[in-house]
């Protein structure tokens, strides 16, 4: 593992060499072992049956809250909505100061300045860029979109890959786009969204994961939340296996962010079990695992209240988003 002079930040030269031609890239990606679909689904389902005892559950709930990227990505987002979301992110349960803050606020690029103003440097501000959610725009527009979001104060950029190019097999094009966006990010962290619901097969998901990590992604993320199916346990398992294998290969830790469709505390805890069993404790931190979600936070708070008070709580006791 002699990572000398990386062509791309954080990616050893040995790995980034393959990206010199479409053919070499294809050979690498298609040379990855195929994903056993039935096996992945069975493994994810099996991990979901793990029993989590009360004391562990308390910890898991707090950890999950601290991993939430509290998200609003609607055409009807208003400054007021974003500000409200920011204060909720800072203090998820106003009646209980022991609740940790969330990891980040995730908004569209034009709202990033507002979010940054509201949270200061107490939370990360993630902005979606590169013509989210479709990714259908020219590279120039995507780069401008990214630069704008960074200038507005975002310190994390969630980009979408060009699924059309990926499915057509133009891997180098996708690769170069990620590299270019990564450069436009500057110091900001880059999360690469695959929209796994559109990639059709787990093999494609594994290839996309490696492609993004080769190009220097800091995080790989399942979905935009605009396409169904969004994050599913098996797809997240494939991502987790990819970052684990990448770490073994290069010594670099890449983060994973399932997004969309995770609504209950129970689901969130199942994901945490999967993270621990696949990647180990090192990944159980908001720096390496995030939930892209909005309604999940309320359910986590309800479960937390339930554990604290001993009785079931209800939606009247959390804020409406």
């Amino acid at each position, binding site marked *: 593992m002699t990572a000398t002079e990386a062509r791309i930040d954080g990616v050893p030269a040995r790995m980034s060499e393959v990206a010199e031609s479409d053919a070499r890239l294809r050979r690498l990606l298609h040379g990855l072992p195929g994903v056993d679909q039935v096996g992945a689904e069975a493994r994810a389902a099996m991990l979901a049956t793990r029993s989590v005892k009360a004391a562990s559950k308390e910890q898991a709930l707090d950890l999950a809250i601290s991993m939430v990227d509290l998200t609003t990505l609607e055409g009807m987002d208003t400054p007021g909505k974003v500000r409200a979301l920011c204060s909720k992110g800072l203090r998820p349960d106003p009646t209980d100061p022991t609740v940790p803050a969330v990891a980040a606020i995730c908004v569209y690029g034009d709202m990033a300045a507002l979010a940054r103003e509201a949270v200061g440097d107490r939370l990360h501000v993630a902005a979606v860029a590169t013509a989210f959610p479709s990714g259908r725009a020219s590279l120039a527009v995507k780069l401008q979109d990214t630069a704008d979001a960074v200038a507005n104060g975002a310190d994390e950029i969630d980009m979408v890959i060009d699924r059309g190019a990926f499915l057509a097999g133009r891997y180098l094009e996708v690769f170069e786009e990620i590299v270019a966006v990564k450069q436009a990010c500057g110091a900001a962290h880059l999360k690469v969204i695959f929209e796994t619901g559109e990639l059709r097969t787990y093999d494609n998901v594994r290839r996309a994961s490696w492609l993004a990590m080769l190009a220097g992604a800091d995080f790989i993320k399942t979905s935009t939340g605009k396409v169904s199916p969004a994050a599913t346990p098996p797809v997240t398992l494939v991502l987790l296996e990819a970052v684990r294998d990448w770490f073994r290969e290069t010594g670099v830790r890449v983060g994973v962010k399932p997004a969309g469709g995770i609504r209950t505390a129970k689901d969130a805890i199942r994901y945490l079990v999967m993270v621990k069993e696949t990647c180990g404790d090192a990944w159980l931190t908001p720096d390496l695992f995030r939930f892209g979600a909005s309604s999940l936070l309320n359910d986590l708070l309800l479960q937390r209240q339930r554990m604290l008070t*001993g*009785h*079931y*709580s*209800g*939606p*009247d006791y959390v804020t409406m988003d």
Partner: protein
Amino acid sequence: MDARLEVRKTYKLFVGGAFPRSESGRTYAVTDAKGKFLANASLASRKDARDAVRAARSAQGAWWGATAYNRGQVLYRIAEVMEGRRAQFEEEVARAEGISARRAASQVDLSIDRWVWYAGWSDKIAQVLGSSNPVAGPYFTFSVPEPTGVVAAIAPERSSLLGLVSVVAPIIVSGNACIVIPSLSRPLPAIALAEVLATSDLPGGVVNILTGRAAEMGPWLASHADVNALDLTGVDDDGLATEMEFAAAETITRVLVPPRKAPDWAEQPGLDRLRFFVETTTVWHPIGV
């Protein structure tokens, strides 16, 4: 031999318009009045109760949002469907309560008529319980009854069908959703009723039926912050009733306490039950002068 295999029925819970088994996987044996085995019924757990509350909460908004006229039509429809299946109800009630076929038939008659009676009330509640109020000022003010929300009810132990209907109908007619624990020893007519509710245009989740022990689920329902009112009509144990009242007070839940003496369900019910599960909202409206 041309003997046909007996088709046995599985008695399950009724939650959110579906018929799930208990999350706990438990069942208990139900016997008739003479102690002869009838069937296994699901023994619901507190997690089933929690799921039922969630189903009731998500159904309540739309049920209240439906017009009073429409709610009346649905309640009437329940009566119609019950009428079509009265033979089944008569048999279930006769077996469960150990009464003659004639008396069972009269219980079923009364149950069906009770639905019709409450159906008629649906669009008259506002006129009778609401008012426009005289005030000394340039305002028009009026008061309207609104449903309390999600109601958890313990149905009477002895009257397996008529008692159950008499508890559920006044709760839902005004736009509440309910979770009801039917008679523990005589639960089968309740599940037959669930089959009627599921096919009567009643939105799933407005009525949820959990067969099982009130002593087990009751305190959890009482303390649940998302339950707005509690009907303890079927709680015979004073200790349990007190425990549930305490738990309910913690989360500010309205409580209809158990009656001092067992009610005669055959009597005309009056408006007391219906009135208990509505809240009066008063609106002040400035008028231009």
